[in-house]
């Protein structure tokens, strides 16, 4: 599993597509673009994640919605574990959201804390963690 993180609007998704293109070239398979991939948008996807997912975008928004639906950290991690065990090449993309003032609102505070803690686990599970700034990736693991 690859974990791609960074602030919003940094070109993380484009970076993930580039990674897949590179990987496929190495393997000698045909090139793939975004249209032929199973991409999941964390902002709108269902709570239960299909195992066929290849790119899981906006993961932080999935966490936000799951918390809103009363789900726990463990429930969320269970979905991730299931998906990446089925597809070891899974790419998860998530915004870094913990660089501001800790919010006064309890819900917002919990959202940042949970995205942080869950991301720590994902970073452990991931083969590579890449941080994208201005479209440039730095592999930090």
């Amino acid at each position, binding site marked *: 599993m690859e974990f791609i993180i960074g602030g919003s*609007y*940094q070109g993380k998704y484009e970076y993930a597509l580039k990674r897949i293109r590179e990987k496929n070239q190495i393997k000698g398979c045909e090139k793939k673009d975004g249209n032929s991939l199973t991409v999941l948008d964390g902002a709108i996807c269902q709570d239960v994640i299909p195992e066929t997912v290849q790119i899981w975008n906006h993961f932080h928004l999935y966490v936000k919605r799951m918390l809103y639906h009363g789900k726990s950290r463990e429930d969320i991690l269970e979905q991730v574990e299931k998906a990446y065990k089925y597809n070891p090449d899974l790419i998860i993309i998530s*915004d*870094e*959201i913990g*660089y501001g003032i800790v919010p006064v609102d309890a819900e917002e505070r919990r959202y940042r804390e949970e*995205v942080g803690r869950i991301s720590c686990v994902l970073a452990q599970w991931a083969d590579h963690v890449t941080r994208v*700034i*201005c*479209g440039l990736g730095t592999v930090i693991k």
Partner: protein
Amino acid sequence: MVVLVTGGSGSGKSEYAENRLLELRADWSRKGIELPRSFYIATMYPYDEESRERVKKHQHMRATKQFDTLECYTNLKQLKLQQDCFLLVECMSNLIANERYMDEGCRLEGEAFVGYVMEGVKHCIPVASHVVIVTNEVNSDGIAYDRETMEYMRLIGQVNQRLAALADEVVEIVYGIPVKLK
């Protein structure tokens, strides 16, 4: 050579950018060629006391560094620059805000807006021998702002990606420490 300097607020981007330009100038001097002029393109419109203070702080920092300051709040294309000059542009997030919200700004949207801003930058690059561009990281606090602010952030993100793609060197400043990204 095009250098892009990014980082959070108060990270020391300006100081690093100025010093980087001075380094490039020193390299040039060592070659024994006559040194061209250095221009500082100030994009921040001083609209209140706090921003005027900020301008003063930056002017003070540049006092001994022999920059000619050119104020340019919108449309970098209007700049009349000396051939081979050294250029420091500070900073893109202000320029983008001005283009979007000042009366004389750019009224285009989305991709066309990004293209317009990039044209301004590309107008300067071939004229200058070295360009250092300062931009800003504003996208990591996790706040879902109103639609317009999110669009402003998205535009900064898009411009930053384009700038990084054409730059020879990209550096993120973390509390004064330069982290080389490209």
